């Protein structure tokens, strides 16, 4: 009897998503709601909801192996925040997450055995998700169970159907890759050339974008259309600037010059405060964060361009894109003349900025905020 029930459970888990949901008592009407929300999450036009429903009905439960390398766990934090939603929970119930060393209960030898078993059982078909960059200078900078990140990635990539690089570290090297890149950090795509790699950058990526890419794979069994640097066009096809609700102020030449001037109070464009929206491609302006509550620009802060390559070395978060960056090579010349001189130059630049800000500074009071 026990054997039968176990077999039935296995059959259900390996069945289609439609079968799995029905076995859990999910009605067709609930399934339609799930499909509508999933289509919205994947940034598909609503006209495609019936197609999503047909595809999800017949989707099979894929095995997923998640590797975390040089990272801060922010990507996993972002993803698990998404998990509070019932619909997204269903997506995660619809995959078999066989290895994720932060989330799984098993540790050490047992955890590695689970990874190896999943790889063997699903060879050629599992989905490999990677967050974090890979250090090439010295394998000892980052290891898991004594295995270097490079060895683990190349070993796991061999049997993967596709690889999803999650977060800016995995997609472009991210903060570990920032100058002077002490660990020799590189991205997944700089190592793996013989498998499809989909880049889902962001520091961290929007949780719905992560689940949206998984949902696309689950729905259609293929990777979505990608842009020239491997990002899904559905989420990274348009710039933050083009989708920003403050864009009309840019078009009219109305800018905030400081964080507390009249322009900032009126919600004008943050371009002059260093907004990287014009050169950043992501879904923040429409998908937003925290259950579509807001996104940085809506909170009054410029976009820092975290989903773009080398965003950390882009020359300052608060410098307008049109302004030339301080010429660091020139600074190096001053440094050759004496470190104090270099410090003096940068200090003078900062003082000039501070003085300019002070001149137009208006103090904000609690009464102002409650107006």
């Amino acid at each position: 009897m026990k054997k039968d029930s176990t077999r039935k459970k296995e059959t259900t888990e390996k069945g289609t998503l439609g079968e799995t949901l029905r076995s859990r008592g999910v009605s067709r009407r609930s399934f339609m709601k799930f499909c509508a929300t999933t289509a919205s999450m994947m940034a598909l036009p609503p006209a495609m909801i019936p197609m999503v429903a047909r595809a999800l009905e017949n989707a099979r439960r894929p095995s997923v192996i998640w590797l975390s390398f040089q990272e801060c766990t922010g990507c996993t934090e972002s993803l698990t925040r998404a998990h509070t939603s019932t619909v997204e929970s269903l997506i995660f119930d619809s995959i078999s997450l066989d290895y994720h060393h932060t989330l799984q209960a098993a540790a050490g030898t047992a955890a590695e055995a689970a990874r190896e078993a999943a790889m063997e059982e699903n060879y050629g078909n599992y989905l490999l998700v990677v967050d974090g960059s890979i250090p090439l200078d010295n394998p000892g900078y980052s290891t898991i169970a004594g295995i270097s990140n490079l060895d683990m990635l190349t070993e796991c990539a061999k049997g993967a159907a596709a690889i999803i690089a999650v977060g800016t570290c995995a997609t472009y090297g991210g903060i570990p890759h920032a100058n002077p890149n002490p660990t020799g950090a590189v991205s997944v795509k700089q190592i793996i050339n013989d498998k499809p790699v989909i880049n889902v950058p962001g520091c961290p990526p929007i949780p719905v974008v992560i689940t949206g890419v998984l949902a696309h794979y689950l729905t259609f069994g293929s990777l979505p259309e990608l842009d020239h640097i491997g990002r899904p066009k559905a989420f990274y096809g348009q710039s933050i600037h083009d989708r920003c609700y403050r864009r009309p102020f840019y078009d009219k030449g109305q800018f905030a010059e400081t964080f507390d001037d009249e322009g900032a109070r009126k919600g004008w464009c943050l371009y002059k405060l260093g907004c990287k929206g014009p050169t950043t491609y992501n879904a923040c302006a429409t998908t937003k964060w925290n259950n579509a509550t807001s996104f940085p620009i809506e909170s009054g802060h410029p976009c820092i361009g975290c989903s773009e390559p080398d965003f950390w070395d882009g020359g300052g978060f608060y410098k307008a894109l049109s302004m030339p960056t301080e010429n660091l090579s020139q600074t190096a010349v001053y440094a050759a003349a004496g470190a104090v001189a270099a410090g003096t130059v940068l200090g003078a630049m900062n003082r000039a900025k501070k003085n300019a800000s002070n001149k137009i500074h208006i103090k904000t009071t609690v009464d102002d905020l409650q107006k």
Partner: protein
Amino acid sequence: MNTSSFNIQTGNELTWNARPILFEVRHALEELVQSGENSIIDLRSIPLAPGEEETIINTLGQGEVHASLDALGPSEIYETRYAGVWLITHYNEEKAVVSRFIEITKLPEILESQQEDMSNALVELTRDLGTQDA
């Protein structure tokens, strides 16, 4: 605190996207009236400033039909004051909005009884009646 009085991000100026969306609704309603074609607008795919979604919802108002659904969390479905224009809001179990659509149709499909559920219902009803007879 009344958050609507705490709007330091936008002042009184918005994206001006609310009105074009309402025109899109009008165009879709014209299609429905003339050719019976249904349309859906995903409100989460359009950049809107704080308060603009509310502007659209308030402009459409509420009509005669109001339905609630309990499927994977609650959903609220109602016909706006413009017949044939429905607002559908899906929530998760934590009551957070997960998706919101304007459907221009005679009746949103999600309100109709679904073929598969009806087939299951037939089996269950037959089984229950059989049990009672026994």
